[in-house]
């Protein structure tokens, strides 16, 4: 039982981590919080529902969801962040992205209604499971886990090993210096938004498949928690967001197991406040000069 809950927690945590990666990528490059991110995650669920309803097989639905979410991310960057790039503009950027999020929620509710919308997947696909050392695991959860871990691994490789990743890290370090060395800062920022939003959309799709529903409230209830996780793991720190996501996912699953689930939400946010006050570089971050910036 306990082991099953821990596995549930890891699956849940991998979705948190996937969203948190997006928050932290954007924060790393721009030093800004993207409050529209959680709503792109929410729309990802609806995009998956819509494309499945139109008869797309899951891989196609995956590509459609990721692609459209990524494009929405480009829109968010252009409308909400392009003009507010100065270091002092973080309040303005937070407000504009919040406003974009409001519009997204309202439009989603106008199109799909305020009630949860079921995803049209055959039941045998959703409940098929395997026995594994006496533990019953639903296959779709394993698939979600594999998918999100795989995506995050690819993201890690891209950021750590490729030329594009080097540009991203350069811009994160200092946009001006990167520009002097010939990096196209605007293009890199756009790419980061595309990647971050595509990941959020995929996470939304994963949640819709796992729960069977897409809901216009998941942005605030589920997506925003990833923001706290990002801060717990260290703002701008990909590894921290990953570990923080898994940690919170497992703890939350255990909290539900022990019937204190209601307070799990509060605990996450209080823990975030505690981390920000005591260890602003994040739980897993090294205390370097880069991380202590305000």
């Amino acid at each position, binding site marked *: 039982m306990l082991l099953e809950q821990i596995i549930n927690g890891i699956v849940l945590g991998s979705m948190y981590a996937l969203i948190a990666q997006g928050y932290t990528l954007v924060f790393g490059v721009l030093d800004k919080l993207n409050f529209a991110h959680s709503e792109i995650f929410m729309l990802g669920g609806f995009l998956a529902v819509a494309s499945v309803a139109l008869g797309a097989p899951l891989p196609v639905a995956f590509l459609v969801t990721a692609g459209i979410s990524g494009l929405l991310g480009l829109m968010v960057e252009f409308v909400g962040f392009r003009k507010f790039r*100065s270091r002092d503009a973080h309040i303005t950027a937070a407000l504009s992205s*919040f406003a974009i999020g409001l519009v997204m929620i309202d439009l989603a509710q106008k199109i799909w209604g305020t009630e949860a919308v079921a995803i049209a997947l055959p039941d045998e696909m959703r409940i098929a499971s395997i026995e594994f050392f006496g533990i019953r695991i639903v296959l779709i959860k394993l698939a979600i886990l594999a998918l999100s871990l795989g995506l995050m691994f690819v993201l890690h490789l891209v950021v750590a090993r490729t030329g594009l990743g080097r540009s991203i890290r350069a811009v994160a370090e200092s946009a001006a210096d990167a520009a002097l060395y010939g990096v196209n800062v605007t293009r890199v920022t756009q790419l980061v938004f595309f990647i971050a939003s595509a990941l959020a959309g995929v996470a939304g799709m994963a949640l819709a498949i796992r729960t069977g529903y897409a809901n216009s409230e998941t942005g605030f209830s589920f997506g925003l928690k990833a923001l706290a996780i990002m801060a717990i793991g260290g703002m701008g720190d990909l590894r921290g967001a990953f570990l923080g996501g898994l940690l919170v996912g497992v703890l939350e699953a255990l909290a539900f197991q022990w019937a204190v689930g*209601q307070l799990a939400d509060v605990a996450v946010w209080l823990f975030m406040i505690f981390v920000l006050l005591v260890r602003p570089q994040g739980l897993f971050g090294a205390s370097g000069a880069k991380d202590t*910036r*305000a």
Partner: protein
Amino acid sequence: MMQDYIMFTGVNILLAWSVYIILMSGSLSFANGAFMLIGAYVSGVLTVKFGVPLLVAAPIAGAATFLFGVLVGFPALRTRGIYLILVTVGIAVSVRGVAESIPYIGGVQGFSGMSGGNPWHVVALVFGVGAALWAVSRSPLQRILDAVREDELAAATLGINIVHVKLTCFGIGAGLAAVAGSFYAHYMLHVTPDGFGILVSVYIVLYVVLGGTNNLWGSAVGAAIMTLLPELVRGVAQWRPTVFGLTIIALLLLRPDGLLAFRIPTVPTVRPPGKARPSGQGQDVARTDETPEQR
């Protein structure tokens, strides 16, 4: 109906000012919905369970929330800018969650039994607070606030106790939100923690942004417009978040200081009044070249 308009407009103006007061010292608070919740519940418990009259309970709730704001604000204001925004979001979510899990005040079902919220008390309060804020804007205090907001380091070298200033503003903002929450709760008769979620806090902040962040009339006008417009224009009510969101985005892009962007001059200045220096919000893309280390 008319009473509703007066009540909600008044409460929202007070809430907008509660954010504006905190913003004057350069901090942005997404926690004012939570402060409103605390005010509503504290005063509600006092009037319903202890029979205290509302006009006594509301100031007590305000004072209690002032203390709460100072207690939370003291560590929170150590963090700046983006971190503070996150901390206030955390406060908003946590306070609501805690309220939902206390059976004494009704938990998720909410709390009822309050009565006697009078719109004219709120109107009187709006005039009182407005007059006080106006007096502050004409006084040297405003220059201290301006200094802290625009450049903390420079303000500190001038001998201004930044922590003191910011904390006072944070506490007063929290207290004002709580008083507004008390009157709101006693007018609505029934409140739920869900009704003071993060969205409420966001709306309050956006009232201020809509009206203009650098003077007190802007906040009031923004709150009044956003409260009354959906009631008076039929189509707007249905599309309220979209209309509101798009307006805010357009405003931030085209007129970053808000609709009523002027500053009341406290002293004759060399720069022309009305064209205040950039209020530290956006636009000047040229300054991206400042590296983190320079701060």
